[in-house]
């Protein structure tokens, strides 16, 4: 089973994309991806509740294909985030939380820790668009949470320092690394596995921003075992969410 842990739905004039759930499912089908773990763009940068509701309705339409993140922008951490998490779990069965800052301000602030704790209490993985330093602080403060570092450091925000992300994961056993990025450094996946093993690497594409085939090939074309590829492509996420085939 292939699960894409990093998917956006909605319209973004900032990033010049527009993708409906049907568009995303077509991309998934074209690339052999079984399930999409989705965040709504409107929820991330415009209206948290409106966006989460939109995604929730899509989950109801495609319960076998769409997993939902409750999207929580930084400014909402202490402005209804905990209630929003509970609401989206109960109303829509959302399985994860996406935390994100726009404009680019730090994610780590006192109000983020209750969000992580609430995620842990629901056993929801958290996808954090953040730096290695921030993820280390969050993972060390709330080690019971499943914290996934979006892009594994391969962003401008994290200065492209993916080796620093691996170091953070080495020191924090609850920290996971998600693969989506336009950087496709040869040997990076092999190195990551050599340091933290394959069980904490999570496949993502960042569709519809990035070319899906490139993100697939980063894993399928790496010099790693098929068993490791299976874990990264979906086994690890399925285990975390207690999903069955």
């Amino acid at each position, binding site marked *: 089973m292939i699960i894409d842990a990093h998917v956006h739905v909605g319209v973004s004039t900032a990033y010049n994309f527009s993708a409906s759930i049907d568009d995303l499912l077509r991309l998934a089908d074209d690339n052999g991806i079984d399930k999409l773990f989705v965040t709504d763009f409107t929820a991330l940068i415009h209206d948290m509740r409106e966006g989460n509701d939109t995604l929730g309705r899509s989950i109801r339409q495609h319960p076998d294909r769409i997993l939902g993140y409750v999207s929580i922008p930084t400014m909402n951490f202490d402005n209804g985030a905990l209630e929003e998490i509970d609401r989206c779990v109960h109303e829509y069965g959302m399985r994860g939380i996406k935390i994100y800052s726009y404009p680019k301000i730090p994610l780590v602030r006192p109000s983020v820790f209750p969000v992580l704790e609430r995620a842990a209490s629901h056993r929801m993985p958290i996808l954090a668009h953040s730096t290695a330093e921030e993820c280390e602080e969050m993972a060390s403060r709330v080690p019971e949470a499943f914290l996934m570092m979006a892009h594994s450091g391969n962003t401008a925000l994290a*200065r492209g320092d993916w080796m620093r992300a691996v170091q953070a994961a080495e020191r924090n056993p609850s920290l996971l690394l998600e693969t989506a990025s336009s*950087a496709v*450094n*040869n040997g990076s996946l092999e190195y990551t596995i050599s340091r933290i093993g394959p069980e904490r690497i999570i496949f993502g594409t960042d569709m519809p921003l990035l070319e899906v085939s*490139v993100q697939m*090939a980063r894993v399928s074309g790496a010099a790693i075992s098929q068993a490791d590829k299976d874990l990264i492509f979906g086994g690890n996420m399925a285990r975390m969410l207690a999903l069955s085939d």
Partner: protein
Amino acid sequence: MTVWDFSGFVGAWGYWPLKERTGADVLALMDAHGIARAVVGSTRALESDWRQGNADILAAAAESGGRLVPFVTIDNTQSGTSELLAEYAAAGAKGIRCYPSHHHNTLPSQLEPLCAAAQDHELIVTLVMRAIMDWSFPVAAVEPFEGLLAQFPDVQFVIHGLNYGQEAWHGIRLLNTYPNVWLETSCLQGLGGIARWVAHADVGRILLGTGVPLQYPACGIAKLEKAEISAADKEAIAHRNAQRLLAYST
């Protein structure tokens, strides 16, 4: 599909552990991914010793049975650029890689002597906007170099390392404006990037790049294989365009 890679490298790599160092290593990786030929520059020339890097790359190419096509790099603050390029061309170099952001040559006037010499010796000039798609690496803007494209119409310029968004659209505009401009794909990572270039510009001047061995070659090949374009266009990008461009060089 025959694959030629226009954005390869050979040499040691100091930025993360990479097992491919020699020309033979790169050829083995190319074999594993079905890449027949690669245009290569020296990793040593990227930021360290360009003279030794050029010697390395010419030696690796000489031992490759024609599968590695060498491009050299010159510190153009030195005098004697034209004479040096003549030597390199005689030794088998087919082109030059310029790294404006790595070599602090971000003023187009700094590259004029090099372009003039390349014109004299019929060498291709690659303007590297980013060496690989890595967020920790420097990036040059292509706009300031546009004057060179018009100033040297007999030089074939390859724009290397454009990514998504406005960079990709700028590449389309350059391709449509200057008949001596070619684009390579190694850093073009946005969804549907190749199809967008093909839809809006001349497919005959788009070159496949994977960035072997610094980038996973499978990624560069996959985005062409999955691109929503015709089989003929894929063949053109995969190798026919590179074949035609390299024939330009003596």
